[in-house]
């Protein structure tokens, strides 16, 4: 299992061709208290850069952008009823999707933890 990070503050935990996707703790802290999440459905396909969801905090709405091409294979349904989990455990229980990667070579364009930490300073 390898964890990758995107410039849009997502993490992607990859095992084989399946990746679990969520937002980083840094992103969750910046958003403030999350009150709503709009998610795609299992089976939805998307390309890198596509909007694949929206997170609403008490402050504002923020889009989730796909860090890679792929297909949603599982949605974390718990988040609809408990969006606040995104603040409590953004890099754990509050994962957003499990996705099937279309092109694993796109992972090379993402960051590792050290590079991500450098980016957020």
């Amino acid at each position: 299992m390898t964890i990758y990070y995107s410039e849009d503050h997502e993490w992607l935990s990859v095992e084989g061709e399946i990746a679990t996707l969520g937002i980083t703790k840094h992103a969750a802290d910046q958003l403030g208290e999350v009150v709503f999440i709009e998610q795609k459905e299992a089976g939805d396909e998307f390309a890198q850069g596509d909007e694949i969801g929206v997170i609403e905090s008490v402050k504002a709405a923020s889009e989730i952008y796909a860090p890679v091409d792929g297909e949603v294979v599982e949605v974390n349904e718990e988040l609809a009823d408990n969006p606040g989990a995104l603040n409590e455990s953004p890099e754990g229980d509050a994962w957003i999707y499990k996705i099937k990667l279309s092109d694993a070579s796109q992972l090379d364009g993402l960051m590792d933890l050290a590079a991500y930490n450098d980016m957020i300073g």
Partner: protein
Amino acid sequence: MTDTPKRTPLYDLHVELGGKMVDFAGWEMPVQYPMGIMGEHKQCREKAALFDVSHMGQVILRGNDIGAKLEKLCPQVFSTLPEGKARYGFFTNAQGGIMDDLIVSNAGEYFFVVVNAALRHQDIPHMAAHLDGVEVTEIFDRALVAVQGPSAEDVVGRLCPAARDLKFMETMLGEIDGVDCRISRLGYTGEDGYEISIPEGEAIRISRLFLAHEDCEPAGLGARDSLRLEAGLCLYGNDIDNGTSPIEASLLWAIQKRRREEGGFPGAERILKEISKGASRKLVGIKPEGRAPARQHVEIQNLDGDTIGEITSGGFGPTVGAPVAMGYVASAHAAPGGKVNLIIRGKVQPAEIVALPFVAQNYKR
């Protein structure tokens, strides 16, 4: 307007308390503290919260018949405003729109006016130009601090006992730990509370005395916005502006009887006509049925899919525990209980027209 945001006398305290500073109307203001918007909001509803509102314009008017002269600019009665009383009002334009809303207090020797931060550059010249023989002076050397919530009376009253006896919309000069302050029992959260004008050099020290009360915590602009929205209070620039009339904005309550009968204020033609015949659109409360917040500019449709209006303020209401919004709809659709659809990111979300406020106002009358 300068490019560098200005700092209020409380800036250093905000930073010390961990305030997340943002540029708001040209001022560097805390949007929230470490407690977070949700917690700060509930703090204000349940105990007490301290807000820095020093960015608002504080103006002193001196001269004769100030109240009567203000009536030429506003559809309120100010000529008989008793000493020690404050009143909500607004400047109207010739088309009957709202130029700004404001609080006018009769301080006895002078009138004390508080206007929105972003509009001081309009309002002060406007008053100077039209209030003949009145000296219009903006005060730059005083902070304005709001202490709001059910514990506010104790937070302020234990330092200034006379403040306990003030009623809603009353104002007094009071001494807080040796400092002369103007203490007014009002605010914009829907809760009981005070706004206190404090000499700038003492503002942090006096604010710390308020915050030393176990029930009082600092709160930022984020909580201020969700509190006023739940209380059904209009935000200038969102819910009211130069194009919206007070009747459309459901502010008829703020136009006193004599002015409704006599007119004599800018835009009276339109406003009096709307009082007698109704306005074509109305500001209403809107309660989304789902969990998605409906924010400013979201389209409102009737159940047939016709556009009937737009959200002007919206978000999550922490006390309501669900999204809340305000917006204008065609008057035919303004009755509470009506079902509408909101178009949020292209998706249809059902909602209901509701009476304002979402949370009952808790003033000490």
